[in-house]
């Protein structure tokens, strides 16, 4: 891997990119920053793959009947898109890249608690990804990423390799979760008390708890459907006394919390971006931290809202409906706190702030449509239509991917020691927002009209909305390429970044850009906590070298 030469601000230690070791130095590294970069490259490749699948799907949907592929290929393609985006991009995305890179620095640690486990999690992730993708190419399962039984027991395609691949990916996720929890408990610098924990760390900590508690349930479910499909165990097959709806309960018991594995890290990024660019402490640190755990906890009690028309009892449906609304309450607390943080700030316009603004609209709209689909009588019409597709893409793409891009720009100077082109970055952020809306707003309308999801062919009256959506998808793809090209160009031609280009007061900006291998020459003593904008840049810097 070739990375730009950038002299560290404190030239006494070489930065982590230039400690040498060649290729082996990267592949055998225990440095959380290098592992983060390896994850970064991997998840970007998978994002691109998932994006290509999405564009192929959208292109097929340009016409009501066959456009470029047959029905079986289409069904395999949407499965591939879902599996890739969920397990190879959204779930690992922010935690393994930015969590890995930033979390130890933000708590004043030299590395994660278990550096070898961290490296192992990367290779387990690669193995899982390879098995999953190979399974998709060879067997090409067509069940959709939800693997609903008993179709997945009977599918004419090969299911088992994909399921085993996702199982392995789950092991990697658990490793990451354990590592973050242990690190947060044991490696905080003495001055970083729980009350001074940066909000991004709180978000990672909450995410890790869900990872550790929910992923084993996914593993169990996947093994059971592999046994059902491969060895005719019959756990979920009514022909031999199994229960197909039981699968939906245990699948969503994992997969609904998994939504919060994807969104809490995104909220964590926003928690950092807003105070930095408004140069102000968050309107309420306690509210942001507590709401994280509110969401993490209540997320385990809402899975039934995926099953309002699957024959669960009306009373159960009522409980699941009202519990689901608490998620929106905790999310609203976060939204108001972010917006209130802007009030009387000293706001500096940079690309991450543009992504925050896009995130805000998409997250609030996507979140409130989430409450709408948790409203049972409305969900009866919307369930399994494009309305639901549009709703979860507002959260998964509109919020999570937007926050990923915000993080990619926000921490870029820290990770690579370079500054990207701000103007192009802002144009990219706006283009992503416009392309996204053009893709998914028509899908809300399609859902209202009653267009079911996972339809290869569709009645012709839906066509013009599909054409709009496909146009938007290509625009979105193009704007993502623009943003990526801007960042890649900055690796080589970008201006050298100072240690703290955004004048932030969060701890990671105390280290040079890029940081030396052990992050801090001495353990920093921070007497004021993060987000203290009453101190000057010199006072902030001084805290890094104390003790």
């Amino acid at each position, binding site marked *: 891997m070739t990375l730009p030469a950038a002299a560290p601000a404190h030239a006494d230690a070489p930065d982590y990119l230039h400690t040498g070791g060649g290729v082996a130095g990267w592949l055998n590294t225990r440095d959380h920053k290098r592992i983060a970069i390896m994850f970064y490259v991997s998840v970007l490749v998978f994002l691109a793959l998932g994006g290509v699948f999405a564009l192929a799907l959208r292109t097929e949907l340009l016409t009501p009947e066959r456009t470029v592929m047959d029905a*079986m290929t289409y*069904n395999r393609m949407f499965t591939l898109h879902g599996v890739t985006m969920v397990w190879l991009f959204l779930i690992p995305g922010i935690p393994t890249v930015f969590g890995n890179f930033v979390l130890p620095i933000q708590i004043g640690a030299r590395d994660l608690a278990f550096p070898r486990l961290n490296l192992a999690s990367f290779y387990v992730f690669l193995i899982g990804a390879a098995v999953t993708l190979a399974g998709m190419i060879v067997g090409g399962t*067509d069940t959709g990423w939800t693997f*609903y039984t*008993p*179709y997945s027991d009977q599918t*004419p395609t090969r299911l088992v390799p994909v399921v085993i691949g996702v199982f392995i990916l789950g092991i990697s996720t658990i490793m990451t979760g354990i590592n973050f929890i242990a690190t947060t408990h044991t490696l905080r610098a003495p001055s970083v008390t729980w009350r001074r924990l940066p909000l991004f760390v709180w978000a990672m900590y909450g995410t890790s708890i869900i990872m550790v508690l929910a992923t084993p349930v996914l593993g169990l479910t996947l093994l059971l459907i592999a046994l059902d499909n491969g060895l005719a165990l019959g756990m979920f097959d*009514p*022909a031999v006394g199994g229960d*197909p709806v039981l699968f939906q309960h245990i699948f969503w018991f994992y997969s609904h919390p998994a939504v919060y594995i994807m969104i809490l890290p995104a909220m964590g990024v926003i928690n950092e971006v807003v105070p930095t660019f408004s*140069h*102000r402490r968050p*309107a309420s640190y306690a*509210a942001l931290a507590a709401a994280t755990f509110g969401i993490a906890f209540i997320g385990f009690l809402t899975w039934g809202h995926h099953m*309002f028309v*699957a*024959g669960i009892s*009306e009373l159960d*449906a*009522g409980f699941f*409906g*009202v519990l689901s*609304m608490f998620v*929106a*309450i905790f999310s609203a607390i976060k939204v108001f706190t972010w*917006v209130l943080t*802007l*009030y*009387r*700030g*000293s*706001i*500096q316009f940079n690309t991450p702030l543009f992504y925050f*603004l896009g995130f805000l*609209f998409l997250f609030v*709209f996507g979140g*409130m*449509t989430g*409450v*709408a689909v*948790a*409203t*049972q*009588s*409305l*969900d*009866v*019409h919307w*369930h399994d*239509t494009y309305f639901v597709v549009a709703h979860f893409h507002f959260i998964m793409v509109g919020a999570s991917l937007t926050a990923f891009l915000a993080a990619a720009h926000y921490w870029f100077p820290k990770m690579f020691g370079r500054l990207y082109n701000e103007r192009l970055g802002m144009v990219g952020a706006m283009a992503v927002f416009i392309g996204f809306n053009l893709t998914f707003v028509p899908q809300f309308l*399609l859902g*209202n*009209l*009653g267009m*079911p999801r*996972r339809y290869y062919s569709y*009645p012709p009256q839906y066509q013009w909305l599909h054409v709009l959506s496909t146009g938007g998808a290509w625009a979105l793809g193009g704007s993502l390429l623009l943003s990526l090209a801007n960042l890649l160009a900055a690796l080589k031609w970008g201006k050298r970044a100072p240690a703290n280009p955004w004048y932030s007061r969060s701890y990671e900006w105390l280290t040079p850009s890029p940081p030396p291998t052990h992050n801090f020459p001495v353990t920093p003593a921070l007497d004021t906590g993060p987000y203290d*904008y*009453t101190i000057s840049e010199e*006072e902030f810097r001084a805290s890094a070298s104390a003790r």
Partner: protein
Amino acid sequence: VNPTINDWLRTILFLPPQASTVAPAIDHLHYFVIITTMVGATGVALLAMWWLVRYRRRAPLQEPPPEEPAPSSIGLELGIITGLFLLFLAWWLVGFLQYLRVRVPPEDTYDIYVTAKQWMWKFAYVEGNQTIAQLYVPAGKPVKLIMTSRDVIHSFFVPDFRLKMDVIPGRYTTLWFEAREPGTHPIYCAEYCGTQHSTMRAEVIVLDQADFGRWLAAGQRERAHAPTPSEPSVVGELGPAQPMPLRQRGELVAAREGCLRCHTLNGQPHIAPTFAGMYRSRVPLAGGGEIVADDDYLTESMMDPLAKIHAGFVPVMPSYFGRLPPAEVAALLELIHSLGETPEKGTPP
């Protein structure tokens, strides 16, 4: 809601016609929820944008920057959150009551049995009538569907009724509705169920009660005079079945039984080999070797489709053993005969 406003909102929100008795109330909640959502999201984004511009940094950063005292926001925030919670609770309460109304059928329903399979809908009436892909119901009378699946989970969805219910193998689920007036409304399968999921469509044909009675009676007369107990009813046509050529009857059977979802008649390969030119052609087999597609092989393939699989096609065909009376098998064979013996074959997709 005033009918003009109702129509106007329904149009801008792209909602289909309100053809069932529950649809208008559900739509009214829909309007309220979506308008609040739009206003909320736009309002928050506009407020953020206004503050972003209002408090933009006008001069280079001063050191140390002036930290304004935090606005005493706790009361305001608590107020907003409580208001929001009450709003959501109102959505939930109305939605839950409507859900109970949708889910719990009234006592005096007219019952129809629904069987879903890959990839068709079958409807059986208490009076003995049977249809495929066309659900005839009376207007202005509550109808209860008692549904099950023969293979995987399907979902019965009528957008114009705002109703949907999963159809699950090994158990029965129910769905009730009352259609407001005569008309035709599409039925979709909403739960992914395999290769041809998106073609698993049908329609609800709502007749007024007198016409529905005549339709039921016509079906009964047809069965009384028919030479076989399951004479195919002509799709969409009332009155007794007419004598017809075997080939034409084969086409009707092929359409009714779903053969044509996978097999084409025009030489175009689809999910399955085309019927055109199939008769007496040489069929390459998946396990190697080949076989001549004579009457024996064609019959075997209907009754036990996995016995000898045409190479290059995914084995998705269901067995018709016990489901096709001999006369209909003969009609299908005659149909395939009539499409020629040309050995020209499509290649698998």
